[in-house]
């Protein structure tokens, strides 16, 4: 909530201190408040506005806001800055003699004249490409004013470049608003940055090809995203730890620490004794801004440190944990049974959009639907995104029954008098939106149920869970072979089963079963490309590369014994949700202060690393960032953990992207090709 406390805006920021008190770690709320400020031009841009976005910021904006919301803020045009708009007149195209082309050009120039009374609000990532587009735009400005907001830390050279190339002085404001990630759920953040799996292996090599450049741009994206998560949540991590087995995690953690040390923007009024960093990257006026920024203004400082200590229980409250997908290749391969995860696994949930085109018996307006967790969108989805398939069926049934009761009450035949008709008219819009919600969820549910039936998923998933959770090589091999030969099981499922088996029994004593499995996979119809992925996943996350923890190998004998006794006494509550991701062991360990330093070392303030983590205070907040992407299963588990520990610990899960098995396997192919 704390805005840039430059002298002019100090009044507005001091009024926002009060809301800071209720500020809990909530990704959606943070990004929303940024977007609110951007779409109003931070209160300084009135009148008709145009929003200029880039590829990533478009996704971020649409994740938390809607068309009608930005329309109500007088944003009447949204366009991409990287789009070659035809409004650039006077270019003198080759086919200019043609009458049609001429007409088009005329049209273009006239529209330049006609939109130039509008003001432009730019929300862009601070990349060279975007600044280049902006420079080109400023050379022949189409709009009367430019308010530029960057979603991350802008490098001083780019700021210089921008300042050099504004001959008409159209830029009114330049500001950094750190909304550089997509808040999918309040406790799940994603960068929507694909192809990060190969990063793990590529970083270790000093590759000289062009791929290394692509990797490094992906790495920069991840670093900027993680930094913006910290800034948007207004937290300076007290401790930064990383997963030892991953070089990518280590480098990311080190770089984040360096960034925090060198830029005062990260310093959120800790104890006054803490020395603030001295190297600001913009000198002069920028430095002054920065200091007043981190100072937070005189009036508000006391209340803020108060709320900090009450909410966080002292100074050292947040733990930043950088992990790598590599440690747990099993979770993205499993079938999912909770709503959000299931939709993503079976239908694909991209930027909270689900494409239902091609589904049998779908009506036209349901060909693409929105499943968003942002507040005010879809209360049903918000409540049930973590419910399992069975609960979901019941919930949808009650939803349908409620709706039917309501619509019966409001049916047209019941209308006898004018008054009733008028009342109906008033309730009609609400009823209509409800009807849309109901039909949307019913359609999705119907399709999920159909896919489960067609793909024989109940059966497959039970075996997957068994493969992931228990040790019985002979039995598993027998069942796997029968599944691979069975014509009912779909080919992608065969591939997943084969990979799960290979991961589990990679180093089993009677070796040689894996080649046999591969043979069986080929026989079962898996393309050779897919069979190759078995080797790829073993290379990417085989037992000698990944850290301990998968399949409970880091648990000692007693806890293993305890667990087996517990399961034998209580029985397994749900066959389809036995599996618990490695992440949860890590989270629980970290929350109880029992995460060993051998596997997850700490970054020292001096720059080195240490495996000695004894005597560290327990974290009240944990931000986990997983290089290579997270899964909805992990998000669901984290959500359950937060609910069980509300008031004590709050965990926010962030990742490069959110995987389903399809996207995970696609990226694995890159790993294989990269080597």
């Amino acid at each position, binding site marked *: 909530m704390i805005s840039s406390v430059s002298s002019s805006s100090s009044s507005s920021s001091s009024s926002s201190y009060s809301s800071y008190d209720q500020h809990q770690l909530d990704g959606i709320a943070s990004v929303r408040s940024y977007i609110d400020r951007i779409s109003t031009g931070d209160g300084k841009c009135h009148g*008709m506005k145009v929003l200029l976005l880039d590829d990533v910021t478009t996704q971020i904006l649409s994740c938390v806001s809607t068309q009608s919301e930005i329309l109500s803020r*007088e944003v009447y045009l949204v366009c991409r800055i990287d789009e070659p708009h035809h409004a650039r007149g006077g270019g003198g195209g080759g086919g200019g003699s043609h009458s049609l082309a001429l007409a088009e050009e005329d049209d273009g120039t006239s529209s330049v004249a006609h939109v130039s009374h509008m003001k432009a609000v730019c929300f862009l990532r601070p990349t060279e490409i975007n600044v280049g587009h902006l420079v080109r735009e400023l050379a022949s400005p189409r709009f009367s004013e430019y308010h530029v907001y960057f979603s991350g830390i802008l490098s001083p050279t780019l700021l210089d470049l921008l300042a050099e190339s504004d001959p008409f002085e159209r830029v009114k404001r330049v500001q950094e608003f750190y909304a550089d990630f997509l808040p999918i759920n309040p406790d799940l953040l994603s960068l929507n940055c694909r192809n990060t799996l190969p990063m793990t292996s590529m970083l270790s090599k000093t590759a000289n090809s062009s791929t290394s450049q692509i990797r490094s741009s992906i790495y920069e994206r991840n670093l900027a995203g993680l930094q913006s998560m910290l800034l948007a949540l207004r937290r300076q991590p007290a401790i930064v730890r990383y997963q030892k087995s991953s070089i990518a995690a280590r480098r990311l953690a080190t770089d984040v620490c360096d960034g925090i040390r060198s830029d005062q*923007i990260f310093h959120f009024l800790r104890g006054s004794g803490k020395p603030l960093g001295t190297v600001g990257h913009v000198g002069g006026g920028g430095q002054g801004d920065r200091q007043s920024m981190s100072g937070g203004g005189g009036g508000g400082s006391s209340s803020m440190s108060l709320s900090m200590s009450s909410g966080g229980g002292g100074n050292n409250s947040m733990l930043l944990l950088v992990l790598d997908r590599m440690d747990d290749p099993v979770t993205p391969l499993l079938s999912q049974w909770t709503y959000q995860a299931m939709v993503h696994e079976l239908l694909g949930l991209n930027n909270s959009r689900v494409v239902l085109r091609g589904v049998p018996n779908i009506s036209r307006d349901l060909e693409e639907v929105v499943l968003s967790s942002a507040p005010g969108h879809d209360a049903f989805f918000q409540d049930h995104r973590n419910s399992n398939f069975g609960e979901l069926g019941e919930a949808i049934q009650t939803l349908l029954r409620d709706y039917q009761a309501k619509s019966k009450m409001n049916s047209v035949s019941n209308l006898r008098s004018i008054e009733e008709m008028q009342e109906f008219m008033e309730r009609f819009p609400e009823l209509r939106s409800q009807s849309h919600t109901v039909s949307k969820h019913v359609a999705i549910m119907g399709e999920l149920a159909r896919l489960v039936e067609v793909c024989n998923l109940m059966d497959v998933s039970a075996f997957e869970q068994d493969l992931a959770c228990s040790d019985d090589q002979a039995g598993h091999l027998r069942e796997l072979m029968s599944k691979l030969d069975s014509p009912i099981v779909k080919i992608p499922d065969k591939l997943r089963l084969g990979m799960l088996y290979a991961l589990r029994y990679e180093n089993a004593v009677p070796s040689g079963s894996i080649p046999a499995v591969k043979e069986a996979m080929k026989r079962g119809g898996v393309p050779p490309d897919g069979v190759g992925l078995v080797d790829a996943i073993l290379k990417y996350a085989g037992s000698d590369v990944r850290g301990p923890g998968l399949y409970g190998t880091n648990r000692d004998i007693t806890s293993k014994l305890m667990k087996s006794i517990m399961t034998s006494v209580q029985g397994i509550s749900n066959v389809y949700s036995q599996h618990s991701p490695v992440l949860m062991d890590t989270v629980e360990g970290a929350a109880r202060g029992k995460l060993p330093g051998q596997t997850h070392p700490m970054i020292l303030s001096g720059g080195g690393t240490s495996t000695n983590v004894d005597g560290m205070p327990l974290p009240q907040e944990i931000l986990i960032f997983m290089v290579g992407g997270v899964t909805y299963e992990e998000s669901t588990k984290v959500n359950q953990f937060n609910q069980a520990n509300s008031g004590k610990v709050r965990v926010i899960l962030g990742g490069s992207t959110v995987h389903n098995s399809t996207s995970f396997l696609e990226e694995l192919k890159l790993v294989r090709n990269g080597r």
Partner: protein
Amino acid sequence: MASRDLTSAFLERRTAANRRRRSSVGPSSKMAPFGISQMKHGIVDDHLLMEDGNALNDIGNNVHASACLPPDWVDDVDAVNATISDIRRLTSELTSMHASRIGTVFGRDLDDMERRIERRTTEVTTLFRKAERHLQRVGASTRRAGGEESLVGANVQRSLAMQLQSLSADFRQGQRRYLSDVKAQKSGGLMESEARFGINLEDDGTLQSRNDYGFGSVQQMSVVDDLQAEIQSRDTEISQIAKSIEELGAIFKELAVLVIDQGTILDRIDYNMEAVVEHTKTGIQQLEKAEKSQKSARPMKCIFCLLFTIMILLLILVAKHRH
């Protein structure tokens, strides 16, 4: 939710950069009069002229861009905004008037009050119509302009329509409440007047025994007439209000076409942007197709073919007649 303001740093740098630029541009601007004088002397230096023209053009563009008046439809938008604020003001007045009307049962200014309410109601209704007219004009003129402007126009229409719709819904609700209250009061009022009538009768009986026998007297007739007049006036009042509701309903329906359903895919920002790109793509495809068909040589070939045939036939004709 930290943020950082780089404006002051940026402005500093920009001023420095522009100052530098101006000082470096300085000498070339001194060239300009030289070029003009050369032109006066009739010595045409192409290169200098071109540079001059460019500079002039640049200045012209600059002036044009900064002093460019917003298109006409912006005035319409302003008009709609003004109308909306008018409607807001009037509706709030109307609500208080309704309240005071409902509050009073008797009184001489009752009719006057009702008349005023009536006038206000029609005023608001006409304002709604006016706003809608302006809105349609915005749509029409921006659609004519095409391109980005039509998109802006559509979005402006949508946003204003949303505001108008919620306003009109509020207004109609207020009207309806008032109507039902007045109706309730009317039936109550009738009973009251009957009671008054009864009391009058008793009064008549005790005070004016002369009229005891004349039950169908003139006085009684006049009371009935009064009642009838009252009923009629209330009736017209109610029908008028109903009419205004009807009109508003029509507007409501027209506006509803413009308003987006919230929560659907149509309300997604990225979906809309993709749709625009898609539209542009199909537009370009169609343009290309049109160009191709225009360029295509088939019709020309036909024409030449026919001309050739005609010539041959003519030759044959001439040859035949020579014999």
